[in-house]
């Protein structure tokens, strides 16, 4: 177990980070110029890290598979970013954000990391505003806030429904400035296909130029993995089409432990699947739960009539609606955490109350009619319109809702052809985020020396469930404020190393491994497309390793995924050639890695014999269907060491010690 040292600094929790920063080694500016850092990924985590490291003086080489850093998946984040600013004076503080995050994560995250995250959160907002990020403001010109699930304060900063876009464009601007100066060398349309270790240390990567197909060697003194989450192991998710596990998986195969693969977030409010031709799912931001009320019909026959298209939701009387979240969780209501809301939706649909008119019948309503009327009345008062008619009130209310969520409503209408101002939205849970990821210590270093993992790619801050608006916070905290310090402490030992040669035998060997695999795909001439296998894997994952898991299903899943993987390697068909742009070849490599991860994922879920956060085991629940944690046996991080086949992976446990927060049953009732 000696291998897993989390390197948490000594001292009281509120002093750890400051003390740490006061005692680390520094690299002087002249020496920084002699040090190269590779950053894989240009989302919020990678983009902010690349920009900050370049500003500090390091030579940065940044990689992304898209044609521009501005297109990283972070761009799609909608709702907002948390920060303990307490601008609303509603009792927020660093401690409260720390507490909410640990509790929201169902007591499965590392206290010291989470505290640091809460501590630097306020700086993120200052930094972004200084960069020109146009956050929403109130009429006094100050920053506005909204509320997200699982908390009782308003600490979420936002830019309409495009918060991720605005934050990422801020990072991209900061990167652009350094690209212009030549301090960041940007490799667009490049995919990292392996990490190169020299004397046990991360010293470079092998990447494929996705335009020419060329395989390239890149060296550096440290490698930062910021490649995002692996939700696409389920095929259908809210992630971008290209989101993948490969960079994380490649470092895992070279010695980085992979932590808590089974912790996945299934987001409660997504647009339901329309059919078999579906390629991805679309999220409707959690911010909508501020004003939308979730319900299904109280009577089964009403639900049946809706599914058959014979009844409209607007025809169902108020008393015949079951606002099940408000009923089950009166104190948090529609704003319970995501895992709780998702399971509750599944429970209602499984019980026959679903209202989807698609093949599955799986959907619940998210209804804005009460909010529209409430805001309408408020506006009528503000505008001194006495005795306003119902139509007028509705009109005024629609206006307010439009200002708050206009682009989301529009997005919904484009996809479904339904007008959510007039009829409730139909929503259903979908895979959204992965809390698990590459294991890192307090320095964000993996178990490979000199290899770091930041953002969604690591496992560190969200435990078994992430609270809304905390991923953006974590990505930017890691990249702007944490890694720039911690990596310096490591690189201080490299000031005399000099440039790493890419002619070293380690580079030659890693490159050969990569080209062999590509040649295999091109020459295999199988019978089935990559998507065929990806979809099959996704089905197994969703049905047996999804929202509700049990030992029988997980055991079957492990065997089935292995089978699919074996068939993949026999039958996969990749058209085209290796020496040109070839999207099918890119997908083949990613799906190959998903097929390994999927099995480890199911194994991890099988071994965790408790329910916590997004990991729900049917065997470990109360009669009312609430999750049951087992703190005595499972208050640890499960970190997996690669040993060949996923079945041979070795489990290491990092115990989690709660010194500042008492472990409690999470209750939102």
């Amino acid at each position, binding site marked *: 177990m000696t291998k897993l040292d989390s390197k948490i600094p000594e001292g009281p929790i509120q002093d750890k980070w400051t003390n740490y920063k006061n005692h680390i080694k520094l690299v002087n500016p002249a020496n920084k110029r002699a040090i190269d850092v590779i950053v894989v990924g240009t989302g919020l985590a990678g983009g902010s890290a690349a920009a900050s490291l370049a500003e500090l003086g390091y030579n940065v080489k940044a990689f992304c598979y898209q*044609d521009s850093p501005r297109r990283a998946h972070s761009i799609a984040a909608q709702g907002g970013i948390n920060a303990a600013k307490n601008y609303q004076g509603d009792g927020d503080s660093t401690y409260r954000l720390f507490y909410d995050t640990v509790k929201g994560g169902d007591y499965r995250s590392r206290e010291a990391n989470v505290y640091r995250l809460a501590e630097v959160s306020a700086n993120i907002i200052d930094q972004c505003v*200084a960069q020109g990020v*146009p956050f929403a403001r109130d009429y006094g010109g100050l920053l506005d806030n909204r509320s997200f699930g699982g908390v009782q304060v308003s600490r979420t900063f936002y830019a309409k429904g495009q918060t991720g876009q605005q934050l990422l464009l801020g990072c991209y*601007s900061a990167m652009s400035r350094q690209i212009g100066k030549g301090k960041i060398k940007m490799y*667009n349309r490049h995919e990292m296909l392996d990490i190169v270790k020299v004397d046990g240390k991360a010293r470079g990567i092998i990447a494929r130029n996705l335009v020419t197909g060329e395989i390239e060697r890149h060296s550096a003194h440290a490698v930062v993995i910021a490649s995002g989450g692996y939700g696409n192991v389920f095929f259908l998710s809210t992630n971008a089409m290209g989101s993948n596990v490969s960079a994380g998986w490649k470092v895992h195969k070279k010695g980085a432990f992979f932590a808590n693969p089974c912790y996945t977030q299934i987001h409660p409010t997504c647009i339901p699947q*329309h059919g*078999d031709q579906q390629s991805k799912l679309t999220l409707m931001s959690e911010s909508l739960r501020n004003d939308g009320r979730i319900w299904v019909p109280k009577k089964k026959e009403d639900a049946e009539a809706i599914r058959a298209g014979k009844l409209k939701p607007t025809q169902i009387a108020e008393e015949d609606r079951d606002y099940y979240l408000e009923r089950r969780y009166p104190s948090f209501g529609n704003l319970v955490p995501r895992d709780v809301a998702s399971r509750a939706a599944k429970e209602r649909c499984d019980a026959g109350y679903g209202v989807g008119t698609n093949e599955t019948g799986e959907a619940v309503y998210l209804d804005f009619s009460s909010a529209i009327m409430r805001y309408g009345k408020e506006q009528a008062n503000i505008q001194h319109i006495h005795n306003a008619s119902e139509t007028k009130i509705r009109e005024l209310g629609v206006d307010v809702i439009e200002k708050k969520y206009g682009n989301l409503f529009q997005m919904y209408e484009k996809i479904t052809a339904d007008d959510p101002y007039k009829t409730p939205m139909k929503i259903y849970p979908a895979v959204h985020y992965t809390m698990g990821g590459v294991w890192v210590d307090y320095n964000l270093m993996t178990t490979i020396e000199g290899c770091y993992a930041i953002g969604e790619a690591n496992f560190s801050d969200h435990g078994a469930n992430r609270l809304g608006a905390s991923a953006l916070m974590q990505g930017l905290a890691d990249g702007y404020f944490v890694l720039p310090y911690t990596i310096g402490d490591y690189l201080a030992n490299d000031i005399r190393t000099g440039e790493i040669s890419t002619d070293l035998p380690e580079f030659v060997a890693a490159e050969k491994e990569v080209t062999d695999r590509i040649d295999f795909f091109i020459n295999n001439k199988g019978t089935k497309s990559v998507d065929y296998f990806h979809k099959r894997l996704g089905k197994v994952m969703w049905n047996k390793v999804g929202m509700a898991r049990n030992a029988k299903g997980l055991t079957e899943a492990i065997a089935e995924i292995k089978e699919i993987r074996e068939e993949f390697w026999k039958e996969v068909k990749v*058209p085209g050639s290796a020496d040109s742009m070839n999207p099918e070849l890119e997908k083949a490599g990613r799906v190959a890695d998903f097929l390994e991860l999927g099995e480890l994922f199911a194994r991890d879920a099988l071994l965790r014999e408790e329910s916590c956060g997004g990991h729900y085991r049917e065997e470990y629940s109360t009669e009312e269907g609430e999750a049951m944690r087992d703190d005595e046996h499972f208050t640890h991080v499960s970190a997996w060491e690669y040993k060949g086949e996923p079945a041979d992976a070795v489990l290491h446990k990092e115990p989690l010690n709660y010194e500042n927060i008492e472990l409690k049953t999470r209750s939102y009732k």
Partner: protein
Amino acid sequence: MSTANGLNLTLKVWRQKNDKVKGQMETYQVSDISPDSSFLEMMDILNEKLINDGGDPVAFDHDCREGICGSCSMYINGEAHGPGREITTCQLHMREFKNGETIYIEPWRAKAFPVIKDLVVDRGAFDRIMAAGGFVSVNTSGNTQDANAIPIPKADADKAFDAATCIGCGACVASCKNSSAMLFVSAKVSQFALLPQGKVEAKERVLNMVQQMDDEGFGNCSNTGACEVECPKGISLDNIARMNREYMSASFTADKK
């Protein structure tokens, strides 16, 4: 899955191996496409068919598939991002098409956006324009002043936000008969010009970004307004007017770097 209302379509798709060879339109048939499918899902189905028939699938850029990353870039039936206003190709749904229709699918066409393969073009010019000045020169330090230290009138903040929603897709360039990038550049210039944080470098910014735009080979703006019509994010021509004002005043007063 055969559906009563599935669409059968003829597709005329631009195929081009790389930037060195000439391309041409090829004809394909797809059948039984669900009207609820997105346009890109229809392209997936075409590709799956091509792969199974031993052909070469059509390359196209896409990632988020929800209208925000700006990757997708198809010129459909003579319009950037196809029929429909304020949407990207990935947000276009097949219910907009009729059974039996022929659909023409081409890449963005502009000198500054060379074709890489099939429907994929190189929009690197946009990144280089950004690197020329699309930023506020502030380092990450942790010591920036408090975010609420400078109140910003809501109207300005909202206008800056509207300009900042540009997704960098390039539809404006593709729709313009001169292949001008004015809408894209002016959106970034406006965002910063409207915010106090951006004002400090406003002059150098506009001069440098416009210079880079010209160097990249984008054409001049002749105010036809096609860009605004096809822009998926509704970026307004007002931004071009604002940039012109900024540019004029900067040309007279700034020491250009």
